């Protein structure tokens, strides 16, 4: 028994060596003997890093496109207002993003995504956005689901905050004081937007409902919030002089540059490909489906508004076509990731028709909104948020990356569960944003005053607020007047 045992012992030793050698050489592949061979785990680690980079850059590109929407709003709103107020609107739309950037960095981001309670976050003021090379951001665990560098998470959320602030600009245009608008924008982005945002995207109470409130890219978080803040402002400002006659009839005040307006709308359409598909905050093929639902809703919105305007108003008004397209885009923003292509077509078409009637409605009740911001962002923002509860399709829902899966909608056999959550969210956001905004506007109104003088409004805010004309034309074409 010994010898065989001995023999087997020697054999065991020999085999162990053989085994090691074989394994070694197999694994090494073409590597040199000096460095250890890469293991499958090394490869996996490298892929993880590649994916981390891809997620980050995709989200960054999405953020750039959303930034680009600022140009869209600037062009659209300027084009739909009067020539004598063009510089003012351009300046407002330009500065509002700068202010949003500052406000969100200083305060807003911390309130919205910082760790805190279910009502508000409170870590990450003046964030330094480190570490840049790992996805988890200390103190902002609500964004841990996204495997993206903290700086880009911040950037992406920042451009969204900027969008909400820009929406206000259009509705209060042609009569608001420049400085007061700057202050309100700071308040909105620093305080108002982040709080309701926290509830929905920052881990707050709306995101922890049994059927969590679902707003993929922000029909409510961004567009309705902007809309409610705008409505509060518009109510306290009152309509532009001359908009409504004493007999209740409406004096149209045509936009001064439809080329700028149409370009602006096309810019926004492009930007929305960052807004919605980019909101995956992950490099994922799901972005493709979202891009198509987004585009489909915009297309159906534009055509539906064209037909509605043609039928109801007699001619296909270009400003209505543009609003129809934007209506489709705003409406699809919440449900873009959970509806089918056909669903997005229906949503877009309804929104496109809805926006035409909404424009008429606000004028009927004498709420003066020069660019249709309330109709597009508020009304269609609400409609889009509801659509989640109506059209969410079980065939599409699984493609989402986030944990907060959505329940199927009423029309897709899901019953009313999701719809009820959506209604709760809409109501809570409406009450909160409208109330705080109203207070903020009121404080500004009774301290410094928010509206320019009637004389300035007549003369135009360009001269009054900025001391310049947008298109000074021949009179200044040759070098200005010599001092007399």
């Amino acid at each position, binding site marked *: 028994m010994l010898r065989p045992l001995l023999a087997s012992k020697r054999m065991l030793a020999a085999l162990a060596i053989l085994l090691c050698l074989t394994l070694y050489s197999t694994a090494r592949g073409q590597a040199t003997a000096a460095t250890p061979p890469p293991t499958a785990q090394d490869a996996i680690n490298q892929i993880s890093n590649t994916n981390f980079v891809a997620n980050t850059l995709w989200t960054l590109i999405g953020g750039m496109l959303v930034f680009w929407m600022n140009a869209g709003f600037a062009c659209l709103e300027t084009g739909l207002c009067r020539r*004598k107020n063009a510089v003012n609107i351009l300046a407002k739309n330009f500065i509002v993003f700068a202010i949003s950037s500052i406000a969100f960095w200083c305060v807003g981001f911390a309130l919205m995504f910082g760790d805190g309670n279910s009502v508000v976050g409170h870590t990450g003021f003046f964030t330094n956005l480190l570490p840049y090379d790992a996805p988890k951001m200390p103190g902002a665990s609500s964004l841990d689901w996204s495997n993206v560098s903290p700086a880009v998470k911040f950037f992406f959320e920042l451009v969204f905050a900027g969008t909400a602030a820009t929406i206000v600009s259009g509705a209060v245009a042609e009569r608001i004081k420049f400085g007061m608008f700057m202050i309100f924008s700071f308040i909105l982005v620093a305080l108002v937007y982040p709080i309701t945002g926290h509830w929905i995207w920052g881990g707050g109470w709306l995101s922890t409902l049994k059927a969590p409130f679902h707003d993929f890219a922000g029909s409510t978080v961004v567009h309705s919030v902007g809309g409610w803040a705008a409505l509060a402002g518009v109510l306290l400002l009152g309509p532009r002089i*001359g908009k409504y006659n004493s007999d209740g009839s409406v004096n149209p005040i045509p936009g001064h540059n439809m080329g700028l307006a149409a370009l602006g709308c096309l810019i926004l359409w492009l930007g929305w490909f960052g807004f919605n598909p980019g909101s995956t905050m992950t490099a994922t093929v799901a972005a493709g489906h979202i891009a198509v639902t987004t585009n489909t809703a915009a297309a159906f919105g534009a055509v539906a508004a064209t037909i509605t305007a043609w039928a109801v108003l007699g001619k296909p008004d270009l400003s209505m076509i543009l609003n129809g397209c934007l209506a489709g885009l705003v409406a699809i923003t919440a449900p873009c990731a959970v509806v089918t292509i056909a669903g997005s077509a229906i949503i877009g078409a309804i929104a496109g028709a809805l926006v035409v009637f909404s424009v008429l409605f606000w004028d009927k009740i004498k709420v003066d909104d020069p660019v249709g911001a309330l109709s597009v962002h508020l009304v269609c923002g609400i409609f889009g948020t509801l659509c989640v509860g109506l059209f969410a399709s079980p065939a599409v829902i699984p493609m989402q990356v986030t944990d907060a899966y959505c329940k199927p909608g009423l029309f897709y056999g899901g019953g009313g569960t999701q719809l009820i959550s959506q209604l709760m969210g809409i109501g809570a956001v409406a009450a909160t944003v409208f109330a705080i905004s109203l207070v903020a506007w009121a404080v500004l109104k009774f301290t410094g005053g928010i509206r320019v003088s009637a*004389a300035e409004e*007549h*003369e*135009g805010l360009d*001269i009054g607020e900025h*001391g*310049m*004309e947008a298109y000074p*034309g*021949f*009179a*200044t074409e040759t070098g*200005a*007047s010599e*001092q*007399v």
Partner: protein
Amino acid sequence: MQMIEAVIKPHKLDAVKTALAKLGILGVTAVECKGFGRQMGHTERYRGAKMDVGFVPKVLLKICVKSEDSAKAVSAIVEAARTGEVGDGKIFIYQIARAVRIRTGEENESAL
């Protein structure tokens, strides 16, 4: 016939047009212009340099009326265009020797 030329503030255009329409005067030709006058208001700055923006946007209206309608048309314009502030504008009236309606060739008062 007389030609009434009124330089007014642009935002008074509608009011003046309406006032004239009430008198039955429906023919008006409006020209965009810049006015230089007492209303030197805004000394502006562009990129830091002082700019004596003498030229303020105005609208120049040309209304040809029967001589007998001239006075009441002027009154109507004055009333509608007045704000009481410097820069409200001027009205100049001069004689028209002949008027022709291109469409029909009608002449003078029947051309208006």
